[in-house]
């Protein structure tokens, strides 16, 4: 197994401490959870339960193409609107009581694993995709290796490490199940950590399952002897294990709470739907934050309200102080963006064509290969939004502009 990097790779100072070395906090005061009534594609969802109904974990709450499931036991309390988006609010109740004995997961057949995964609606935290679909796609592909990715290669996040530290053995079992379901017999957990932490975690995992990524470079790609490798998140592996062993619905995530406005950065285990305000009041704010970021600092999405919930696919949230935005210059043509692009694109060239409205030149530059890693925008010394322009290039690709004097300039 080998980990590969762009030719002239992006290495960035880590901001993971102190969250990475602290034990994971449990968000046990059960808060109000917020679940969006619009799905990722903007399609509406209608609640299926009545107001004040009690819902059980995993219960289907709405209809729609991608329905909502209750992460925990709770009472459907209200529908509230935040910034034009509607949310379903439930008063969550903590699940008390003993954990039942786990079922024997080692005798499950691939079909049973996939069925359990489907029933539990496990979502991969790496890309927000449905794990059952993803495993089916991996089984179809020619991947020779399955990797549970706990690398956390962006500056702040350490949720993968925290998950492994807390539930290492379960994650390994979950990876074994995932590999079985995808029909791959080579599988490893990939971790980036200091020697001590690495040793500590290695001791809790089955022998030889943990591989250490020794470089501090973004983004990383995994392959095996030139063949592609498939990756799944460690948290998804954990959820898969719990789905198979306890029939438990995927309702919890480990999320890194950090940023320069947070007083005690930490990893927090919380149910999906927890509003940002809850995690920030748990970790404390030193300053009035200017913005919140859902995701890590390279690829996250900035929001200006802490009323939004944490949903599957998010493993890091930040609260950032107000800072002077850096001066944006013209492209100086240093070529760094092209050098860090792991898709071998020419981001500066695509950006130039987009800015000059030469959309017909775009298809030959294949902007559609961009996966939005944002490495090009991070390295750009002129602080240009290169990645955003590439994204725009995907939409504008091949468009022909015909203007006869009048344009809608509104």
């Amino acid at each position: 197994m080998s980990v590969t990097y762009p030719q002239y790779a992006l290495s960035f100072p880590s901001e993971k401490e102190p969250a990475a070395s602290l034990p994971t906090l449990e968000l046990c005061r059960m808060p109000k959870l917020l679940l969006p009534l619009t799905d990722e594609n903007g399609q509406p969802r209608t609640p299926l339960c009545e107001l004040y109904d009690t819902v059980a974990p995993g219960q289907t709450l709405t209809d729609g193409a991608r329905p909502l499931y209750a992460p925990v036991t709770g009472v459907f309390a209200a529908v509230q609107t935040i910034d034009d988006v509607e949310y379903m609010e439930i008063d969550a109740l903590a699940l008390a009581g003993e954990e039942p004995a786990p079922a024997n997961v080692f005798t499950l057949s691939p079909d049973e694993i996939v069925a359990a995964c489907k029933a539990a609606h496990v979502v991969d935290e790496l890309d927000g995709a449905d794990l059952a679909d993803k495993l089916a796609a991996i089984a179809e592909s020619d991947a020779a290796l399955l990797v549970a990715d706990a690398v956390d290669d962006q500056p702040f996040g350490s949720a993968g490490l925290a998950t492994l530290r807390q539930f290492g053995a379960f994650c390994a079992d979950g990876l074994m199940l995932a590999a079985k379901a995808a029909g791959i017999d080579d599988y490893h957990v990939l971790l980036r950590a200091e020697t001590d932490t690495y040793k500590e975690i290695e001791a809790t995992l089955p022998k030889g399952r943990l591989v250490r990524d020794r470089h501090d470079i973004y983004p990383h790609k995994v392959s095996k002897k030139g063949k592609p490798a498939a990756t799944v998140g460690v948290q998804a592996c954990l959820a898969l294990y719990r789905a198979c062993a306890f029939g438990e619905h995927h309702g919890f995530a480990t999320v890194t709470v950090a940023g320069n406005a947070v007083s005690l950065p930490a990893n927090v285990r919380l149910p999906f739907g927890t509003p940002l305000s809850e995690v920030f009041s748990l970790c404390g704010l030193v300053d009035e934050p200017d913005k919140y970021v859902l995701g890590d600092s390279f690829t996250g999405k900035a929001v200006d309200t802490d009323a939004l919930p944490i949903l599957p696919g998010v493993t890091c949230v930040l609260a950032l102080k107000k800072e002077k935005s850096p001066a944006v210059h013209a492209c100086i043509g240093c070529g760094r963006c092209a050098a860090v692009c792991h898709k071998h694109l020419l981001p500066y060239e695509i950006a130039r064509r987009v800015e000059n409205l030469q959309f017909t030149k775009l298809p030959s530059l294949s902007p559609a290969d961009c996966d939005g890693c944002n490495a090009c925008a991070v390295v750009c010394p002129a602080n240009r939004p290169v990645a955003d322009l590439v994204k725009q290039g995907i939409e504008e690709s091949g468009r022909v502009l015909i203007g006869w004097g009048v344009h809608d300039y509104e």
Partner: protein
Amino acid sequence: MSNLRNAPFSQNEANVSTLSLDMLLALSPAVAFGCVLFGWRVLLVVGISIVSALFFELLGGWIARRPSDLRDGTAAVTGLIVSLLLPASVPLFVPVLACAFGIFLVKLPFGGSGHNLFNPAAAGLAFVTECFSHHVFAYPAREAVIPFTLRTPEVNVAASPAGLLKTGGSTAFSWYELLIGQVTGPIGTVAILVLVACAVYLFVRRGAAPLLTVSCLAACAVIAALFPRSADITWYESILFELCSGYLVFGAIFMLNDPVTSPRHPLAHVMYGVAVGVLTMLMRHFGQFEEGFCFALLLCNAVSGVFDRFAWQLLRPRRQRRKEREV
């Protein structure tokens, strides 16, 4: 949502200002060494040149009603490079005119830093070389003491190694004199070893691409070995004299590496470097002046985008070609 900035929220610490600062830092040993070799008038030439470059940048911005940001440092780098390519006894209007031409006519009309097609320092120098070659190539003799004066000092001039090669004679300097700068020549370009140390600094800081510099110098070395300009020198002496004369090494390190006007792709770097090297040697052999680097650089500036495109087409991942065939 609101007008929040998009990701990323972390930025590499290198930005346009630090890149220019690196360039200025890497050039400062050349200024210091120039002072040691030629006296304090060097500071005057350098100072006037930088100040006039900054002034023309501001003036251009004011005329075009476009805010000019001197903090990006590109104007200062242009001024410094121009001054280091002139003799220490040069009349002070020469660097001023060179900066005026480079910044006012070559850089700003194309849209200022980042948009210029031609390297402003090379263009400015090419301009004064054409107009005032008797000043630009009038290098003070080594024994001459250059007074610290605003007026043009009266000093004995002597031929530089490049001039000697041009007239077909072998150079009168030994190899170590050439390397440590005990020769007549421009202010900042004679101390080859100092320049090489600066280059290493720039390479480490990723402010310059080694492929550009090395490929250019290698191309020159090959041509020098094959076609010595003087009958009574061996091939390795020819390489040494050609590389260490004029401002070839200086240019290959500091002017070739101007990121705006050079290509971006590593393979294009090699092609561009070789093209500049070959053209420089052609100009030295058949041109009018003893040094042709600026002209070679300007010619290649015009087509640097072509090198880039070509290199990318050539090395385009096979994955992509396959995809195109499927469509």
